[in-house]
């Protein structure tokens, strides 16, 4: 958005956002860390030292290797001889994918509800906002657990594994939409009163088109900020669900699943199976949160 505007003036390097970014060591540091995670996860099939899902490549003689002992398995191995570093790279892939998909789902639902509520006003607004109020007081993880439980009861047990990924994305997304709806509604109320909307109405442009091509671009700034911060929360939600055993099946382990599996070996001394995925999860969420905090401050005109 601001990048496109700046390019006409002489490149994104001149934009305020870029200036603020390069002058904040925390922002640069967390961006680099996030990038490392995204690259490590995205390129896992090509750069991971082992393929943790190829049973033929696993050797039980390699099981429970200590970390930092050999170059072949830098972070040690689990009970099946799986390389922890590779498992973490693949796990981050699943965590990021589920987190991003859930946030995308929450954004679509929340933005649509917010636009409709803000533009329509009246009882539609009242009803939609009451629903979001009720849902906001209800913790998202409980909401996600309930959705997961209900879907689990509706769908035959043998099909659970196949649809579990979508169920989790739906459960997390549906528990996180109200924040987006509220912020978009607020901005829409402001934008609706502006002259360009009146002009569009006067020349007879339809409501849907006004909402999507006129108002929507002007309310997306805060959505970006909340979206970044929600990504961190969604990744934690997914990890929590997977840890509780109602998340993704062990055939598709996310960081949360890896931590749960490792938890079983905590008392027999193999701490690294759970601690390293845990540290990866913490670093990933911390980087995303710091980036979101920075973005919130940088896009807030009052703080300039």
């Amino acid at each position, binding site marked *: 958005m601001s990048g496109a505007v700046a390019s006409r003036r002489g490149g994104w390097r001149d934009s305020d956002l870029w200036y603020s970014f390069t002058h904040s060591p925390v922002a640069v540091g967390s961006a680099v860390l996030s990038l490392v995670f995204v690259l490590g996860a995205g390129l896992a099939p090509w750069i991971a030292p082992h393929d943790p899902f190829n049973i033929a490549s696993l050797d039980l003689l390699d099981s429970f290797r200590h970390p930092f002992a050999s170059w072949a398995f830098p972070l040690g191995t689990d009970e099946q001889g799986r390389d922890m570093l590779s498992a973490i790279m693949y796990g981050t892939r699943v965590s990021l994918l589920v987190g991003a998909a859930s946030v995308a789902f929450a954004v679509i639902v929340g933005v649509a509800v917010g636009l409709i509520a803000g533009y329509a006003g009246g009882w539609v607004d009242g009803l939609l906002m009451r629903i979001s109020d009720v849902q906001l007081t*209800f*913790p998202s993880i*409980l909401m996600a657990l309930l959705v997961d*439980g209900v879907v689990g*009861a509706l769908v035959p047990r043998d099909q659970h594994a196949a649809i579990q990924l979508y169920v989790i994305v739906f459960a997390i997304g549906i528990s996180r939409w109200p924040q987006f709806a509220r912020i978009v509604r607020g901005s829409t109320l402001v934008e609706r009163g502006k002259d360009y909307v009146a002009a569009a109405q006067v020349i007879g442009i339809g409501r849907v088109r006004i909402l999507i091509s006129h108002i929507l671009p002007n309310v997306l700034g805060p959505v970006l900020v909340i979206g970044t911060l929600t990504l961190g929360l969604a990744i934690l939600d997914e*990890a929590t669900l997977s840890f509780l055993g109602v998340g993704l099946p062990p055939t598709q382990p996310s960081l*949360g699943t890896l931590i749960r599996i490792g938890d079983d070996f905590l008392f027999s001394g193999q701490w690294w199976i759970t601690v390293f995925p845990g540290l990866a*999860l913490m670093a990933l969420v911390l980087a995303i949160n710091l980036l979101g905090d920075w973005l919130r401050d940088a896009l807030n005109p009052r703080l300039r």
Partner: protein
Amino acid sequence: MIVFVISRLLQAIPVLLAVGVVAFSMFTYVGDPVGAMLGQDYTEAQRDALVHKLGLDQPAWEQFLHYIWAALHGNFGYSYRVAEPVAHLFAVRLPATLELSFTASVLAVVVGIPLGVYAGIWRRSLLSRVFMVGSLIGVSLPTFLIGILLILVFSVELGWLPSFGRGHVVALGWWTTGFLTWSGLRSIILPAITLGLFQLTLIMRLVRAEMLEVLRTDYIKFARARGLRARSIHFGHALRNTLVPVITIIGLQLGGLIAYSVVTETVFQWPGMGLLFIQSVAAADIPVMAAYLLLVGVVFVVINLIVDLLYYAVDPRLRIGRGGRGR
């Protein structure tokens, strides 16, 4: 005052009704309780008898009224998983969850507020910065990971504290308490820290931010000019005026406490409602889930009501509306 309370209660009714409808729909339309309870071998007559016994042959609205009526009398039906009354399952596990949540919130308030006040007053000191960085890491750590790391350090490596269960409990009527035995007290330490840490960091950050705001105001400067002792200024004048948002957050976070007690109870195998709920979700045990939803809904409405009443007690400006003057 009474008008205020009544209007709040009236506002809560639609919310409770909505929660009731969702709980009832789950209870009635999800899954096949009859098939699950009968098992493989049954006659048509047995089946009809069970359908009738469960009231599944009545019209939906009658079933709904029946469900709510029964729920008001503490009857939430039978668990599919263990074939026991849900109310009985809850009664057995309620003390464990309440004791854990109570200890965790006391910990969060008793530690969080002083840390926040300290970090607000001496905000450039090294210790304050350590608190702030620590709280940022605390927010990024999921609850279950905090629990696992605490178990790793204090149970596995050091062997100081137990890693699961409530220890020995003492029965006081139907209530069981772990507060009266040494092993019960030792058992609650790690779960309470795990559950309370997020609240603690949140309260600390909030108190700090509010203290920074309040300490800039004129009446604090005036109190300083009058030569009041620092202790009296900080705690008597400043902290008191930070309490409204702090009470809101503590109140709203009690809901979060319930949510994350599910996680904490799983990590520590704490025999409470949360563990029951997660076992029910895994087994698609709908009556327990529906009853839990109802119960949590009621708890939330009650918490919101208490928070509103506390506002009223803490902030005299809210009382001006009815003609009285603030102190």
